[in-house]
């Protein structure tokens, strides 16, 4: 039974550093220095969160700003290490947390495809094989040798999405990235995500757009101030969420 979970997060607590820059006088400086709060002030972004996802399920993460949705995604990707609890991931992850994280804006689109691809852990050879496919999806054929600082944000997003979704991952992690880009491209992205879901990919999806959550996901988890408020079938959780936040 245990083997079925591709994402197995147990009693996860994540700690953040909130050290504020505001030190008003010398006395406060030394007080903070002695209490060791000068550089570190603890804040628990997630507390006791349990999330078990089976292969092929798609989960929406909902909640107001600052409730810990993105933190949970980052923990799943291995970017944040658990303070308490365990994270067990089976399979490879395609992180779509910020499109084009790792782009170098002084380099051309062509160079960035290789840079960003290797950042995601692909080999150079692999990127060469999929180069055409990426360019085609991003629709940037004429701009390949332009430094991407000269690109519009929509063009950058297209390139980022094309690189990140070139493989069929076991787990796709998406954090509210489709707000840029025009309608046509958004539809294209939803299309590709749907394709992956049909192919058996597991999805973790953060969005404030409840309709898209209902559309893409079959389960949802509702976070509130770092705690799980409710988790279960998407319709049930979303309805209650909408009632409370109306």
């Amino acid at each position, binding site marked *: 039974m245990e083997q079925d979970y591709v994402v197995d997060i147990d009693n996860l607590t994540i*700690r953040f*550093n909130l050290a504020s820059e505001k030190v008003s006088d010398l006395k406060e400086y030394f007080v903070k220095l002695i209490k060791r709060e000068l*550089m570190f002030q603890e804040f628990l972004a997630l507390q006791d969160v349990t999330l078990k996802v089976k292969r092929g399920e798609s989960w929406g993460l909902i909640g107001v700003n600052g409730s810990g949705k993105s933190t949970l995604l980052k923990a799943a990707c*291995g970017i944040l290490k658990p303070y308490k609890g365990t994270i067990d991931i089976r399979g490879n992850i395609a992180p779509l947390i910020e499109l084009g994280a790792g782009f*170098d804006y002084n*380099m051309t689109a062509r160079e960035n495809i290789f*840079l960003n691809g*290797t*950042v995601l852990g692909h080999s150079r050879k692999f990127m060469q094989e999929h180069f055409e496919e990426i360019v085609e999806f991003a629709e940037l054929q004429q701009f390949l040798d332009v430094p991407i600082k000269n690109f519009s944000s929509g063009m950058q997003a297209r390139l980022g999405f094309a690189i990140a979704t070139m493989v069929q991952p076991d787990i796709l992690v998406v954090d509210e990235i489709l707000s840029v880009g025009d309608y046509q491209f958004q539809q294209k992205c939803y299309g590709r995500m749907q394709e992956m879901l049909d192919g058996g990919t597991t999805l973790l999806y953060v969005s404030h757009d409840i309709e898209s959550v209902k559309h893409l996901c079959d389960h949802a988890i509702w976070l509130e101030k770092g705690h799980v408020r409710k988790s279960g079938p998407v319709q049930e959780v979303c309805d209650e969420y909408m009632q409370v936040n109306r």
Partner: protein
Amino acid sequence: MVLMRERIHTFIKYKDLLRELVVRDLKLKYRRSFLGYLWSILNPLLIMIVMTVVFSHMFRAGIENFPVYLLAGQAVFDFIRNSTTMAMYSVLDNAALIKKIYVPKYIFTLSRITSTMVDFVFSLGALLLVMIVTRTPFSPHMLATPVLVIQVYIFACGMGFFLSAANVFFRDMQYIYGAFMVAWQYLTPLFYPLEMLPGWLQSIVTLVNPAYYYVEHFRDLVLYGHFPSAQVFWGGWIFAFIMLAFGLFVFKKAQDKFILYF
């Protein structure tokens, strides 16, 4: 054993990233400058000319073939200085990326040191040029230079790991290191002969200054045309590996907390 295998596996997975980062550093360094990579040779050459004009009269008695003496020492020391300074910022500069995607963080430090090493190899062109002009005999011992480069590379990696990790927690490191670097440079016989230092300082420098070992090693190969003494040769390896072990230890202990301090 399993852990070790996993680490090697991860490194192999990300070796192409290392390559891309090194290529990027080299490409961006001189992009849009007219002379481009020639600057890697011109820069040390210009500094050497200035220093030779200024210092060769001061230390005339002590040093034969001052331009080569100076340039050989300067090249090795600049390699150490530039690589470690670049490495110190490697983690912080990539904070935005580390916050978004999981990447083994040491790759960034390693890439900075590697690109500086490539730059160092370019700068040896300046040395060859000066050796031809000053009619310094080429000795076959020069072919052993890669051994020295590996020594310095390992040493710089260790130091870079330590500095990049320390700099995340104490930004003061940048300023401390700047001052430290000045002291270190003057305590390494780059433009003066070692014998000019008072006896007690001489013994300290020859005992604990790793830069002295590497500079001496390089001069033995290119200027004096013989292999370095056993002390210089093995001392260089020992410094390199002690530094590497120390740097890796600090980096490994600290790396999971980086993200809390960006």
